[in-house]
């Protein structure tokens, strides 16, 4: 069970919550379990087909697995993940500190602009970087007067690392900043009174308190890097996802499954290592402590460098992508003979994302209920399997579903339902997590009181618990919506014939250098995503 526990972020629930389930009528519990079981069965399909596909490769598969080229893919993925995660951490920690604990001017604006990098999908950031930093790109033309004729190619390791660093650093900023805001001030004061200087306080007192948040954020970044397809595909860096895509395109499903299984294995190893390294120490305050306002540290002569630092991050993450997209939109680029009306793209993208978000939220509901209210061994197992999406990159899910549909259910091959199932498996953890934590925050006594006043268990759930958990459920919904909208590899592989979304349009237009056809859907996607993210962040704000 340790592996399964590692997949799933732990949530501490007070013991007394669990007893509610025992009072449910047996029939209701069984209903929740039955629905959960059905959802979990769907999640298991791709895993089963992946294993079958890899096994069918037989000896050939084993030879393929251990040849030098495959090992190089492993090396590529590991080095990309390591480099991007470390770089993202190096940027994220000072950025989080500056925007929460220093007297940096316009802190909230810097924070919002820095986090805005999250709404730009990795493939979009990557294509704009090829234009900005390419051998004859914008940067080179600015350096031309200084005698720089051409820059070294951005494609490859450098470009992939740069892109992933920029798009993932917000995933570290968010938890670290939250931890910084909740640090125990009295410890710092004690440190100072014992003669530590500012740096000493940071290193010896603040940093250790940040470790849980840092490790969670870094894990998320590392998982993102392993599963990301867009950046490595655009940057021609042969990490796992790109190699799997190439094999899938050539319909060599056995080789693709071997690679996919290896990738899933690596992800699991990463999670296991992470759970082993979890620091067992105590990071919360024991005493009540004196509550006091967080004191902002004056930056003094470091103010200018700090401003330059924040500005550079915002410039890389948001300004460059937007500038390049506007340049393509307004400048002269090759005209795409295929014009797709923007409203059709909006209709398809928003439509499929909304339906998927609803499907995922509904599927997550019984599982979240079991997780929060019914901690039997069997239920825990169900919920852990439902978290499989965390270790299955989109390309892997798509590959497995193609194998399943072509071999067994041709009627759903290349249909919207299959695409939505793909999204659901990938993003189910997001929704379960949000819904489960919302349930866990509600005192089960409210429900018990409603029951004692004569409501049936389901009525109590519907009239008491669900309305109270509404915020969390909707935040999960918005999170799934945001991610489905940006999703590329699953969409490319599972979409019905002729079905276009922002992501597929951007992808195919970039392939053929129709840059103005990249720009318009790109900008529209950023706008809609920013809107969804604003809602999620406002919700987080409300919680904290």
């Amino acid at each position, binding site marked *: 069970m340790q592996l399964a526990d590692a997949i799933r972020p732990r949530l501490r629930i007070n013991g007394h919550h669990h007893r509610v389930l025992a009072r449910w009528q047996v029939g209701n519990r069984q209903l929740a379990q039955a629905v959960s079981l059905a959802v979990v069965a769907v999640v298991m399909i791709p895993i089963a087909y992946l294993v079958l596909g890899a096994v069918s490769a037989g000896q050939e598969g084993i030879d393929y697995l251990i040849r030098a080229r495959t090992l190089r893919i492993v090396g590529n993925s590991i080095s990309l993940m390591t480099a991007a995660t470390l770089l993202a951490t190096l940027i994220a920690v000072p950025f989080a500190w500056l925007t929460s604990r220093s007297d940096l001017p316009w802190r909230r604006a810097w924070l919002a602009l820095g986090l805005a990098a999250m709404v730009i999908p990795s493939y979009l950031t990557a294509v704009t970087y090829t234009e900005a930093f390419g051998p004859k790109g914008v940067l080179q033309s600015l350096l031309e007067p200084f005698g720089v004729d051409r820059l070294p190619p951005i494609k490859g390791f450098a470009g992939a690392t740069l892109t992933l660093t920029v798009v993932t650093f917000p995933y570290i900023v968010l938890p670290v900043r939250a931890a910084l805001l909740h640090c125990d001030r009295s410890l710092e004061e004690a440190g100072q009174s014992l003669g530590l200087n500012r740096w000493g306080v940071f290193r010896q007192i603040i940093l250790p308190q940040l470790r849980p948040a840092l490790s969670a954020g870094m894990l998320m970044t590392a998982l993102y890097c392993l599963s990301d397809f867009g950046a490595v595909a655009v940057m021609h860096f042969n990490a796992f996802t790109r190699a799997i895509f190439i094999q899938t395109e*050539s*319909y060599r499903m056995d080789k693709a499954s071997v690679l996919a299984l290896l990738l899933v294995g690596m992800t699991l190893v990463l999670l296991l290592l992470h759970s082993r390294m979890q620091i067992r120490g105590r990071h919360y305050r024991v005493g009540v402590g004196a509550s006091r306002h967080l004191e902002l540290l004056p930056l003094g002569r470091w103010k200018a460098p700090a401003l330059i630092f924040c500005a550079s991050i915002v410039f890389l993450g948001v300004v460059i992508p937007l500038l390049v997209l506007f340049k393509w939109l307004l400048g002269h680029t090759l005209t795409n003979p295929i014009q797709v009306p923007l409203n059709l793209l909006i209709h398809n993208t928003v439509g499929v994302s909304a339906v998927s978000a609803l499907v995922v939220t509904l599927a997550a509901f019984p599982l979240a209920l079991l997780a929060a209210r019914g901690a039997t061994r069997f239920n825990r197992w169900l919920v852990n399997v439902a978290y499989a999406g965390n270790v299955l990159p989109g390309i892997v899910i798509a590959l497995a579903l193609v194998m399943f549909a*072509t071999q067994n259910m041709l009627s759903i091959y290349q249909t*919207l339902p299959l695409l939505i199932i793909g999204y659901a498996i990938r993003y189910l953890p997001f929704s379960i997590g949000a819904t489960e934590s919302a349930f866990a925050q509600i005192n089960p006594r409210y429900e018990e009181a409603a029951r004692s006043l004569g409501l049936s268990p389901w009525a109590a759930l519907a009239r008491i618990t669900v309305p109270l958990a509404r915020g969390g459920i909707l935040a999960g919904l918005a999170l799934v919506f945001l991610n489905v909208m940006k999703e590329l590899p699953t969409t490319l592989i599972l979409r019905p014939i002729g079905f276009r979304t922002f992501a597929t349009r951007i992808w195919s237009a970039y*392939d053929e250098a*129709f840059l103005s056809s990249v720009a318009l859907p790109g900008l529209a996607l950023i706008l809609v995503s920013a809107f969804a993210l604003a*809602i999620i962040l406002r919700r987080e704000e409300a919680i904290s």
Partner: protein
Amino acid sequence: MSIQRLASLLLAAALCCFVVAPALGDDVLTVYSGRNESLIGPILAQFTEDTGIETEILYGGTSAVANQILTEGENSPADVFIAQDGGALGALAAADMLHKLPAATIARVANEAFVSPDGVWTGLSGRARVFVYSPESLDEHGLELPNSIHDLTGEEWRGLVGWAPANASFVSNVTAMRVLLGEEETAAWLAGMIANGVQAYPKNTPIVQATIDGEVVGGLVNHYYLFRFLAEDPDITATLHFFPAGDLGSLINAAGAAILKSTDQPYDALALVDYLLSDTAQAYFAQTTYEYPLVASVEPSVDLPALADIETPEIDLSDLADLQGTLTMIEESGALD
């Protein structure tokens, strides 16, 4: 905006998606196209407008789509396969998946080199492999035009050449090389190009763009992509070089079409193939995509050497069927890494 209002908005959008989504009937002709939508999409739309036959079209790389049909086998929903090159069509012919075409359809094509010997596929438009280059960049680097694609492995071209290693036209070019020069020499050329820092692009158009931008001096492409750029900006100086003396870099190939044996709409499928060989469609290929029309009654529209004047290597297009073998060789060479 409140979360409730967002939720109702999402719900409304979701309903829209399901209710408005067009129901797909069984009488829709399913076309699998290995040609880019930007090249073939407009004429397929014209076909529907002129004949009333509805189509749904899957676009993908030619090798990918051919492999997909091979994998789907008898279950393939595809009625018609449109390919970027004869090799992929040959691969399906070898698997006995193609319907024989009527003699009258085949007879439209003037040169029998561009139809299948068994009459199971027909060429639609001709194209030549060429070296697109920028004369300014060539001078700047003190280079001379290559006489053969083998020259491009020379040190003086280090990092200055572009190719699209996963593209079907390139794949069939490499297949031709395997047929004419053998496995060893082909693998050596691929390795030489990679060792020489060749720049990889996803498709042909970005190579032309990179040539215009000066990112590379030149690249291995099909002839027609440059004319798209010239049509929008006549001041572009990039130009085409045809490798002389039957060099493999000047392979002439044909985009083509075939009807799947498993089709349930053979008549509509044939109507589409005949339409693509009609004067209307052939004039479209000549004037809009700048390819070589293959029927005698339509002339090429841009200033190009006549097909017969290009010194192309002697090869039978149906011999280029070993798609998988070439894909494996390209992959093993490290070109896709």
